[in-house]
């Protein structure tokens, strides 16, 4: 069965209210803008969104935030969208802040079947409160749990028809990690090529992780987000 899906809404059919959803991107860079836009059309709420940021004000995940569909955000830098602060102040959203490297490694661990890992990052700070601390060979670490999710929405540059992926410049960021850490993974890409057209040495995400491929309809340009 082909993984390629023409209908964005249908591709997103797997997302249910209350799900945990990984969303790729560093701000809008490398964010799956078409899939996020599709999600704003769907009647789902109480979502837990794992993403470095919650978009920008009124852009990307910021639209979903303003629709009150997000119950909880897990990320490292919510400062880039001022609406998050307002919602948090009003008790309309829960937030879990993680150091950026911890967010990345927790996704990697989740995808690799690990329960968690010990890291020096955050030891002795407010972000270590409530986390197990342990000394290994004379160095203090805290335990961070792996992150796994129901669905991942990611962005790549090219897919082949099997779902092998290559990325583009700094739009790669969290996307290859998120591809590994969810039950269902949907990728949006600029271009779909035949299997065999991508150099196996250059494939970054092997197709084993990918369930559904869609063509990007919303892309980030110098002029902002445009529909193609």
């Amino acid at each position, binding site marked *: 069965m082909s993984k390629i899906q023409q209908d964005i809404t249908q591709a997103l059919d797997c997302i249910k209210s209350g799900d945990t959803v990984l969303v790729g991107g560093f701000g809008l860079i490398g964010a799956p803008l078409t899939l996020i836009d599709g999600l704003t059309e769907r009647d789902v709420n109480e979502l837990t969104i794992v993403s470095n940021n919650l978009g920008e004000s009124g852009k990307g995940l910021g639209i979903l935030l303003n629709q009150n569909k997000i119950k909880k955000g897990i990320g490292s830098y919510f400062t880039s969208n001022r609406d998050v602060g307002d919602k*948090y102040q009003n008790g309309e959203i829960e937030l879990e802040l993680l150091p950026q490297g911890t967010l990345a490694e927790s996704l990697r661990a989740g995808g690799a079947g690990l329960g968690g890992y010990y890291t020096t990052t955050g030891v002795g700070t407010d972000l270590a409160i409530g986390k197990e601390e342990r000394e290994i060979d004379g160095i203090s670490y805290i335990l961070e749990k792996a992150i796994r999710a129901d669905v991942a929405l990611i962005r790549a540059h090219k897919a082949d028809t099997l779902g092998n992926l290559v990325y583009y410049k700094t739009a790669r960021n969290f996307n290859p990690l998120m591809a590994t850490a969810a039950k269902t993974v949907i990728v949006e890409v600029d271009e779909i090529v035949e299997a065999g057209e991508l150099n196996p040495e250059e494939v970054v995400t092997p197709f084993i992780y990918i369930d559904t491929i869609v063509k990007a309809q919303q892309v980030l340009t110098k002029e902002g987000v445009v529909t193609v």
Partner: protein
Amino acid sequence: MTVQLNKSEMQHAIAERVAQELEGPCIVNLGIGIPTLVAEYMTEDNIYLHTENGLLGVTDVDDEAIDPNLVNAGKMPVGEAVGASFFNSSDSFAMIRGGHVDVAILGALQTDENGVIANWAVPGKNIMGVGGAMDLLVGAKKVFVTMSHTSKDGSSKLLKKCTYPITSTRQVDMIFTELAVFKVTDGQLKLVDLMPGVTIEEVREKTEAAFTE
């Protein structure tokens, strides 16, 4: 007579002074703000810039060559140097935590007299972002901090003890302000340089933290 610098001139003066401390070959990670300006003053060829969103080999970029998908940690457009590479966020932070980055240059809100810094949260305000600051502090071989010496009300930001939440228990290696440069050795601040036109009396007056001269 002291020449009064405006804020931008002050920031550039700090950045220029930091650049003098960088010796190649080395890998440097630049934070947002004053640290970003350091790149303008680096004279050595074999200094490579790492940005935590996934690029080793950052350069500046001409306006006509700007690519919206090629940015630094501050989401500003950048270029790629000869020999550059892209990688995912987990690999990027493995480089940082794993001790493969030689120098991290970060901004700070406060520094204490042992060289512990606070740069991610302000009490009484919502804690909304931390980014890569905690990872860089635990992992970089050396950490240089740039900051303004005093707050708007004139009070020292180099304190006996930070009043804001600390970013790490790790002590930084050097502190650069518009007034002076300090080295941190064994948890003690030592004044190593005065910025042009600044007197030792002014530094003493505006510094709460203990330091040796």
